[in-house]
């Protein structure tokens, strides 16, 4: 990883020290782009343009192509997320059991929309396709550095209680 950065400074290597071992392992293994992007997102929480450029240098894959892959899959984010990522399930069972009203309740309480982050940087709301806990619909998963927590059988009021409790911890 000694090549020069395209913008002509050497700060990139320092900026992405945690990513370097991932690239050492996967950069030259064909078909590993998605794996690299997943690991990069695990480390930094999202894929910045700098990170994409850095991965491009190491792998020889053009930034435009990496951007194309990153925007194709719903897992990848190009913007930073809050400390707690709310993954609200919008699967069929959740839809039938009122996931839309749960979303309204979250949006009303946190004053954000799907894909947005609260001003204090605590919460980001993401609607997801299905978490596979259909018998507990409506469901949401809250991801954070402390791990993932799933909450089922939500109601308009219980979801606010859950969020209030998390905000207190944050």
């Amino acid at each position, binding site marked *: 990883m000694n090549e020069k950065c395209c913008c002509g400074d050497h700060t990139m290597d320092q900026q992405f020290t945690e990513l370097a071992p991932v690239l050492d392992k996967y950069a030259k293994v*064909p*078909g*590993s*782009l*998605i*794996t690299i*992007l*997943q690991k990069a997102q695990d480390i930094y929480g999202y894929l910045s343009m700098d990170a994409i450029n850095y991965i491009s240098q190491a792998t020889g894959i053009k930034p435009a192509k990496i951007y*194309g*892959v990153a925007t*194709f*899959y*719903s*897992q*990848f984010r190009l913007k930073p997320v809050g400390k707690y990522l709310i*993954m609200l399930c*919008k*699967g*069929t*069972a959740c*839809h*039938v*059991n009122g996931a839309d*009203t749960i979303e*309204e309740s979250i949006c*009303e309480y946190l004053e954000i929309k799907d894909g947005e982050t609260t001003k204090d940087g605590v919460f980001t709301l993401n609607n*997801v*396709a*299905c*978490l*596979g*806990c*259909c*018998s*507990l*619909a409506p*469901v949401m998963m809250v991801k954070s550095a402390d791990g*993932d927590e*799933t*909450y*089922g059988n939500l109601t*308009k009021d219980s979801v606010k209680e859950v969020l209030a409790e998390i905000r207190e911890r944050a």
Partner: protein
Amino acid sequence: MKVIIGQGSCGVATGAKKTAAEFEKLIAEKNLNAVVDLTGCVGTCYLEPIVDIYDDNGEMTRYVKVQPENVAEIVEKHIAGGTPVTEMAISEEDEQFLEKQQRVVLRNCGVINPENIEEYIAADGYKAIEKVVTSMTADEVIEEIKISGLRGRGGAGFPTWFKWDAAKKSPGNEKYLVCNADEGDPGAFMDRSVLEGDPHSLLEGMIIAGYAMGANEGVIYCRAEYPLAIHRLEIAMDQAREKGFLGKNLFGSGFDFDIRIKAGAGAFVCGEETALIASLEGERGMPRLKPPFPAAKGYWQKPTDINNVETLANVPWILYNGGAAFGAMGTEKSKGTKVFALAGKIKKGGLVEVPMGLPLKDVIYGIGGGIKDDKEFKAVQMGGPSGGCIPASLIDTPVDYENITKTGAIVGSGGMIVMDETTCMVDMARYFLDFTRKESCGKCNYCRIGTKRMLEILERITEGNGKDGDIELLEELAVKIKDGSLCGLGQTAPNPVLTTIKYFRNEYEDHIYKKKCTAKSCKALITYDITDACKGCTLCSKKCPVGAISGEVKGKHVIDQDKCVKCGRCLESCKFKAITVE
């Protein structure tokens, strides 16, 4: 004594980990002779967290909905005292949920500890692969699968033996077996349950498939949304390698096979084989024209076979018990059992495995216990975004590939979402089109633009702006999208619209011409009102988030229709049933 706590994703979501921790704490505190262990999901998700206590004679008592606060009593009376707490045990009625099933794929789920290979081996695990590699030729294995009549459980229902045979006959030494564990259908979760509850049965099925087609490498393409499944698979693979079930020279036969996991990154279209392969290669998951089929040119242009999790989890059972035993279950053309994910407005939601051909009624009422809150059954959605809605009038339809396809829906991966009188069918169609529009990869114009246009029409109908001719326009677009799309996503995307128009045309017409939503679910078409039954308790006005309700204490309240956002909070809060929806 043994205390076994169900810790699939659904169990964990209802607090099973806290329950387990409480058991461990109290057993240690009281210094009792009992071990706490874990298992996967038994399928009765509506009863989680589930705790099975085996006494020293092997007698099992199943406790349901065990929260940490219930643990002390069970520990004291049952574990210390030796007397089961019958009030907290599973009811006879709930036991029926499992008794009416016939379990092949789910045989070990909720029974063994998925993180312990010894328990899988004790349940006749890895015996099928031993038999296969030491005493059968590849052709004999394929023949056995042919006899069993096993068809793909992921959606299309293609005969499994045919795919294996095609991959085997393709020239070349380097071949791949891919397991599609990217369970994309929103509303189906049987694959998750198998991955979390019995990962070894999938591994064994993959090794057998690899042997049959001559592949030495298997790849599991697993959804990134299933972290627990990936974790358990990794444990299972390490244990299998240690035992010599994965790696070089299995059972001294000279056959090498190993497996690795690739986490998907979230794209429904990757359920399509060629899109999945593109994704495995690190590209955008976009389908390509077939032929060449993956059996000829797949992963890295090598012969590749792709099977779904449930399909492969059937394989060890078939090879161990014989293809004829599997073929004896089910119907003539749809053999064996199938797992269905019962969810939606159902009393007892969970996973149900039954022989193919059982009438829908037996699944929904016989096992699922009927509709939640005893409302009226309206329809069941099968096959997810590629499937359709089957109306109440067809409840006697046998559940097999042929009969379900005749209704306009498909068996698909086995999701069954039950709907009652409060579910609007136009809104359901809108929901699925919104899903397929987002998930369309954009390659084919009809799929990319057509789904968007259909969604716009459905949105305007549900918003009360439907026009004369909209239904016909939807039908016309549906046919064109089906014809003009390359892959299964586009070819089946209009199905939810077509089946709802076919069976519930009156609801579309009510929305368009009478501006009325019979299910009282489309917000633009309903109004909330307060009747004379109002006692003036003021509760609704306090609950209203937009301050649309006013009135004196002990006087009748009124709703300002201009302010009302139709959230329904007033209706939920009223104790006097004074609020109506029209």
